[in-house]
């Protein structure tokens, strides 16, 4: 079975297949010599990712900066061309489409970005920003468009008196509502939310998450939800994909990942999150503190890319790249790319404590400025 097929088993059994990503890579060339403009190296931002999504599902993608999660989002939204691999949307391959054939697809796949300040034109009124999707993609009259925009604003919790205001007159939470309204305008099938609530205060963040969930129920939306906040991702997602340096290292149903993480990276990532709720503190095990930073994707470590920071790493991890596969004892759809997956009850923290004291040497070249 291919990775996509394996991954599919985890997708809710009912519901149609919406999106298949098959062994997709994205390399950005790095030009180091301006004179001869020759590409010496490339940043392997996404390096062989496969996943599948069914209608109505939410896939959470987590990982630290530089893991490729945002690049993956842009590949799926066809904002970047892929270097290799296939992306199929409703069965149609979209990776090779030209501009004209791409156009209807742009209605169906929308994005919500982190920074509503940066993604709204400050010189245009909200009503005009929200009219764009209709004027570009439909033949509606101006009156009809106006009607649609008002509906849309009401739906995301903006009042109609906001119609003639500029983005600067709104708070961050309201601006994100505008961003969501714009994404929703043409009734897309898939909305890719890239850190949609990271810039918002916690009380406002909860309003936006609730709004996204309501809209999903109402319009049967499918979400890819990218965030670094693991408790937010757990709240909204059905399934999770954990990325590290351009690869998915573990994927599976949300509760499975959060309660029985098999990859040492997932386990340490989860344990690193500070938890506000003291009631849970008694239940928490010792925190696993990873040493060092995420290495540069320009020059990723050999074998398993996590091995220099991994508390469980052995010789084979540096030479042989582990496959993303179902490990013994795991349910279908829970896939892990690790030679030595974490066993239940294993004291991972102890292993890495020593690593912390020693502070693994970090080569200057591996650091990201």
């Amino acid at each position: 079975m291919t990775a996509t097929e394996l991954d599919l088993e985890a997708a809710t059994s009912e519901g149609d297949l919406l999106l298949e990503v098959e062994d997709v890579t994205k390399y950005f060339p790095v030009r180091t010599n301006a004179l001869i403009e020759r590409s010496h190296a490339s940043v392997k931002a996404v390096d062989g990712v496969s996943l599948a999504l069914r209608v109505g599902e939410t896939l959470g993608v987590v990982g630290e900066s530089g893991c490729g999660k945002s690049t993956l989002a842009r590949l799926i939204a066809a904002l970047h061309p892929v270097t290799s691999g296939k992306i199929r949307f409703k069965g149609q391959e979209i990776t090779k489409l030209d501009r004209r054939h791409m156009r209807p697809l742009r209605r169906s796949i929308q994005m919500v970005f982190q920074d509503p300040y940066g993604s709204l034109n400050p010189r245009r009124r909200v009503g005009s920003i929200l009219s764009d999707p209709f004027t570009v993609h439909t033949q509606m009259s101006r009156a009809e468009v106006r009607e649609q925009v008002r509906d849309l604003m009401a739906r995301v919790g903006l009042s109609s008196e906001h119609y003639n205001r500029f983005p600067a007159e709104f708070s961050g939470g309201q601006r994100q509502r505008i961003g969501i309204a714009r994404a929703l305008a043409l009734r897309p099938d898939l909305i890719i939310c890239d850190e949609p609530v990271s810039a918002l205060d916690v009380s406002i963040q909860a309003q936006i998450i609730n709004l996204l969930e309501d809209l999903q129920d109402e319009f049967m939306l499918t979400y890819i939800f990218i965030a670094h906040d693991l408790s937010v991702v757990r709240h909204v997602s059905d399934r999770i994909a954990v990325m590290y340096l351009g690869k998915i290292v573990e994927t599976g149903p949300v509760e499975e990942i959060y309660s029985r993480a098999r990859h040492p990276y997932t386990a340490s990532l989860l344990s690193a999150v500070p938890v506000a709720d003291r009631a849970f503190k008694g239940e928490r095990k010792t925190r696993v503190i990873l040493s060092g930073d995420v290495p540069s994707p320009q020059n990723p470590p050999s074998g398993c890319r996590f091995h220099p920071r991994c508390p469980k790493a052995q010789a084979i991890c540096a030479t042989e790249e582990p496959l993303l596969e179902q490990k013994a004892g795991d349910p279908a759809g829970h896939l892990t790319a690790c030679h030595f997956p974490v066993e239940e009850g294993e004291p991972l923290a102890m292993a890495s404590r020593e690593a912390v004291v020693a502070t693994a040497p970090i080569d200057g070249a591996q650091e990201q400025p």
Partner: protein
Amino acid sequence: MSLLEVRDLRVSFDTDDGTVYAVQGMSFSVEPGQTLGIVGESGSGKSVATQAIMGLTPGATITGEAKLEGVDLLAMSERELEAIRGSQVSLIFQDPLTSLHPLYRVGHQIAEAMRVHSQVTKAQAEDRAIDLLGQVGIPEPARRVRDYPHQFSGGMRQRVMIAMALALEPKLIIADEPTTALDVTVQAQILELLARMQRDYQTAVILITHDLGVVADVADEVVIMYAGRPMERAGVEAAFVEPHHPYTQGLLQSIPSYSGRTGKLRPIKGYPPSLMRQINECPFASRCPYVHDECRVAPPPLKPVGTKPGHLSACVLPADRVGLSAAAPEGAAAGAGAAEQ
């Protein structure tokens, strides 16, 4: 005696659009060796309050008092404050790249502070810089001391900032969102480093953050700010287990519970009030589910509540009415710890 005692601090700025009342009456104290967490959302005044105390808000109108070991910082001249900054109180900010000079080697920048404030030779200061870089966990400190800030990653830069903050063994470190720009695995490293350095040097820390998880993790005591005022002040346990103020409760209920899906989130309705006027009622009144007439008369002062000593809340609700009654997260025991195994 408290190390730092702040009373009725008020900070306002005159702008073209009118006066912004950023801090509208803030009192707190920090004991030696203690970590005080100041939590609040954007615009709550949490950063402005400490910056004003340290003389880092040019043009602001500041009233009240802020006594560092009995000496009022607000009454000091800029020269006197300069002598305090760095030697007795150091500051760590969110983005180390903007606090480090890009054109000087980090070793030079660490040594510079020492040479300004104490009588050491250049060689002594550089040795100490290497020593400090080693203590904050930078590998090969003798080599890295000659590197420039851009040659360090975000986490490593924050380590450099901590080394610099510790250089003169201050009594108090003010850390303003020190881990906000970092990934969680690096955040965990930095928080542990801060805690270790605090133990080794017996430094008091004021940790300013919007992240309730970070505060719950490292603070001894917490002040929760809203619209320029403290809403609640308590030991970290009491603040998170039996919060009294409806705002604190609302904040905690807004966090997606780490224990799993607990259905819909319960956000706080509405938006924070404008700071373009002095607020003469409870600032949370317009968003509060328990609001009644008394709340509209004047901003309630902090008063003792709950069962723990030192637990204060600026709310007129009865003192015994504490705790997240309706919101106790379901299934508290289930699953939360398993992921760490």
